[in-house]
Structure formats: C-alpha cells, structure tokens
C-alpha cells in the first residue's frame, strides 16, 4: 500500500471511527456501567434508523427525526429496564443465562418485526447534506461523515459532562462501582440504573438516525453492529466516554485499512477479530476501571 493511500485510509478511518463511537456510547453506559447484557442494543439502533426513515416519509430531516424520537426511546428504555429488573435481577439466581436469552430474543423480535413491516430491501433517507462532500486539498471529506463526527462529539462530550458534573450522572457512576454503598447514601440504585438505561436507549434514536445517514440500512444490519458496538465498548474499558471515542477511532482506522488493502468483503470480520484480541489480551480495555 502506498503512503498516500494509507494517509487517506487513516483519515477515512477517523471519520468512520467517530461514527462507531456515536453508535456505541449507549452500550458503554448500559453494558459498561450498568452490567446489563444489552445484546439488543444494535437492534435498537436499527429500529432508530427505521424510525428516521419512517419520519423521512413525511419530509422530516433524519437528524431532526433522531432528536424527536429520543424521548420515545428513553421511555422505552425505562420500561425495558423496569421489566428486566423485576423479572431477572431481583430474582437473582441464573439471571446470566436468562437475561442474555431475554435480550437476544428481543433483538430477534425487533429484526423480524422490521422485516415484516418494511421488507428485507435496503432503505435510505434523503437530506441536503447526504451525497455532498467538501475538499481539503487532495482529500475529499463526505458531508454525511462530517455530520456523523459532529453528532458523535456532541454525544460523547455531553455524556461525559453529564456523568461527571451532575448529581444523577455521578450517581450513575457510583452505582457502577458499588451499588450497596449508594443505597446506604440514601439513593435508590434501581431508579438510578433505570434512568441510566433510559439514557442509553435514548442515544439509539439519534445514533440510529446516523446509521441511515451514513449508509442504507436493512433489518439484518444489527448483527454486524453487535461486533462493532461491543468491540468499541469493551476496548473503551467499560463505561469510559473518552475511551469510547478512542476505541471507535481505533476500530475505524483498522477497518478502513483492511478495506483498502484486502477489500470490502473482509471488513465485517475486523471488528470481531479486534474484539477477540481485546478479550484475550486485555479484557479491562484501554481505560479500564
């Protein structure tokens, strides 16, 4: 690979990586901080993408659609966690196997429901910034990727500030460290976790809108993103927001380099390969707690 090609691959990879960080922040909260086996996260992303597609039919801009759907997803997240806690966490034994099967089943139901409603064909949206690009010297930067980068930075920075500056945010971090201690301080850990899971699910609306802005979506796309989102969340060092951004960029660059050197058909294996590598070498991730 020539030096020039490598440079272009790295720039494309950084843009792609910010996008991966945006789709993974929710998982960093739900799985990284709360230890919920949220394997349905990518399915919710695809659901968000189809939400943007559906609202796009009424002429709503996909980003605006993502913002509009965020409260809906937030409420859905509250409900899912409440149900999960009541049926699995509070009963204790064997929650691992059954909790996993529960979220796996939910992901599967979302995927099949989308197939039944929208069909298996790829869907895309239209907006002024999709398809255009700006040139910086020799390098062309697609506008849709720049939009993704902007949203990714807003999301990760916003969540980082929220988790470190606000009372509830600190409580969420505390519940991740020691639930009993939080309860002794007079805060209800279950309500805090429910709130955090709502936020995690809420990000899926906006990140899902990004998903369909960046590329056309199909109902089965979630499976591919299981690897990408979990790779980023684990590599980040469960729950760290700057880590999520860094891990996203690492994955983006790795995928972009494989894409240019080996071809597109190998790209899906990169995230999973990297994930296995991280699990084998450093399960605590880059910024592990």
């Amino acid at each position, binding site marked *: 690979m020539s030096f020039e090609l490598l440079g272009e691959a790295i720039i494309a990879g950084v843009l792609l990586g910010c996008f991966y960080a945006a789709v993974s922040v929710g998982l960093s909260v739900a*799985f990284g901080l709360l230890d919920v*086996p949220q*394997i349905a996260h990518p399915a919710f992303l695809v659901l968000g993408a189809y939400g943007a597609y559906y609202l796009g039919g009424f002429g709503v801009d996909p980003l605006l659609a993502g913002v509009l759907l965020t409260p809906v997803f937030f409420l859905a997240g509250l409900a899912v966690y409440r149900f999960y806690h009541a*049926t699995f966490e509070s009963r204790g034994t*064997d929650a*691992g*196997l*059954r909790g*996993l*099967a*529960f979220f*796996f*089943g*939910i992901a*599967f*139901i979302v*995927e*099949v*429901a989308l*197939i*039944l409603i929208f069909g298996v064909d790829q869907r895309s949206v239209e907006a002024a910034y999709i398809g255009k690009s700006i040139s910086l010297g020799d390098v062309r930067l697609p506008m849709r990727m720049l939009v993704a980068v902007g949203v990714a930075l807003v999301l990760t920075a916003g969540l980082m500030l929220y988790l470190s500056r606000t009372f509830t945010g600190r409580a969420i971090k505390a519940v991740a460290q020691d639930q009993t201690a939080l309860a002794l301080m007079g805060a209800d850990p279950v309500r805090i976790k429910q709130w955090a899971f709502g936020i995690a699910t809420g990000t899926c609306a906006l990140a899902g809108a990004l998903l369909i802005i960046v590329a056309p979506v199909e109902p*089965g796309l979630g*499976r*591919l993103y*299981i*690897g990408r989102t*979990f790779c980023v969340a*684990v590599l980040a060092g469960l729950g760290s927001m700057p880590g999520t951004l860094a891990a996203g960029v690492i994955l983006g660059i790795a995928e972009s380099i494989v894409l240019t050197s080996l071809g597109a*058909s*190998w790209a*899906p*294996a990169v995230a*999973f*390969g990297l*994930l*296995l590598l991280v*699990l*084998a070498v450093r*399960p605590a991730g880059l910024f592990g707690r």
Partner: protein
Amino acid sequence: MGRWTKFIVGAVAVLVVALLLARLVSNEYFFFAGYVVLQFVVLATAWNILGGYAGYVNFGSGAFFAVGAYTAVALIKAFAAPLLLQLAAAVLVSGLMGLAIGAMTLRLRGIFFSIATVAIAVICETAVLNWGFVGGARGATVLQPPAPALFASYARLLFVVMSLLAVLAVALARYIEISWIGRGLRAIRDNEEAAESVGVPTLKLKLFAATASGALMGMAGAPFPLYMSFIEPTSAFSLNYAVSALAMPIIGGTASWAGPVIGAVLLGSAQQIVTVTLSSELNVLVLGVLLVAFVVAAPDGILGLVRRLLGKAGAK
C-alpha cells in the same frame, strides 16, 4: 445397566419407526420436513450440553452447523467423498472448533463468552464468503448420488441417517447428564469458583462439553449440502439456526435431555406447518416471542411446567 435399558429400547424403536416410515410413506415432502425437525433435535441437544448443563450461552451455533456443512462440501469438491467420511470429517473439524471455544472459557464468562461466539460465527462466515473453492458468496451445487438399493429416494436415506444421528446425540447428552460429568457441569453452572475449590476439574469438563457440543452441531450440518443439493453462506450461517438451537432447549427445558427433544419436536414441527401455511418470517417471529415468553414466565420450560403439574397432582 437398569437406567439404560428403557432408553435403548426407546432408541431402537425410534430407528425402526424411521426405517418403516422410509419404506411406507409415499409423500416425499414428509421426509424433507422430518429431516429438518430431526436436525433441530441434534442442534438443540448439542447446544444444551454446553448451554443448559454448564451455563455457557453459545450464540454461534449457526457457525458450527455451517462449518460441518462446508467441511462436507470441501470433501465432495476435492474427491467426491462418501457421506460417512463427510460426517466423520465434520465431527472432527467442528469438534476442534468446539475445543477452541472451550479454551476461551478460561478467560471469558457470561456475556463475554457469548459475544465471542458471535464473533467466531461472523469470522467463519466472512472466511467462507471469501473462499472460492467452496463457491464463495455465489454458493455451490452438490449432486445427490443415486438412491441406494433399499431406499426409494436419497432424501429417504438422509432422513434415516438423521434419525440415527439424533438418537446418538440424545444418547450422548443423556450419558453426560446422568454421569459424574453432568454433575460437574451443573456445579460449574451454579458456582464455578466453588466447584473448582472443592476439586471439580472445571477446565477439563468445560473443554469436554464444548468439544462434544461443537462436534454434534457440525455433525447435524454435514448432510445439509446433500439434502439441499445447493449451499450458500447466507442460508448455511442463517441466524435461524443460532436462535433455534438456543430457543428450543430453553422452551423445552434445559435441565434434562428430554427438554431439547421436546422443544425441537414441537417447535420444529410447528415451524414446518407455519412456514408452509403462513410465511417464514412469521414463523421466526413466533419463535422469538415464545423464547422471551418462556424465559420470563416459565424458566424451567415445558419440562418444568409438566413437573409442577405432576407434583401438584401427586400432592393431592
């Protein structure tokens, strides 16, 4: 010996019935549907050895199935290997793959293990997609050999072969369950540290369970190319196998070998009927909804429900 007599009589009866059906039933579709149901019996039983007994949830069953199928395809393409050799090779290759995921349990537990199995599934699929020798993304056509002397069609032979494989798989699962291996695996599921500290050889047992589970899944996949006469990665690695292999034991009941068999026979048959009469998407939706419903409301599956009913009746 006593605890095997009944089982062996039952197993022989199943095989005799399968042979008789292959001679007597005239409708070819029956064998196609029956083959699929039996294949799910093997898959569900295999999943349960690692998932149900030891508590390690495998989301990548489809990959083991497909690796078995593609091992068979590679052998057919290379030197037109006979079915028996295809089966043996598939068992070997997917068993080694099982050993590999068994080794991963050293460091990975719970959701990390499960995600790693998804990772292996996607990596295998990508590799097969890029492997031209077995057809790559376009798929490969496999010609069925002429039907052997005793059978009216090749599908009938495969039906009987799959019956035999199902009986073998269930016998192995039953052996594991009632022997010390099963007790050790259950101890691992309930509390791995405690099991290790009282002297259960946890690593050996996990390696054994993962290898057996993987080998059986590959075995279920080996006759698949001949059965379909055509194979392509998307259908061989279909998510449907992964979900079915997990949903059927959970719905049937993971505690005993009968659970996966009940789940696979009931759901497999229902799937065949729903797919033909309604649509295949609706069929997988029903599977997903049933999985969630059982996990939430009846964690011990159909087996648990039946036992509770019998227990209440006995108490009165």
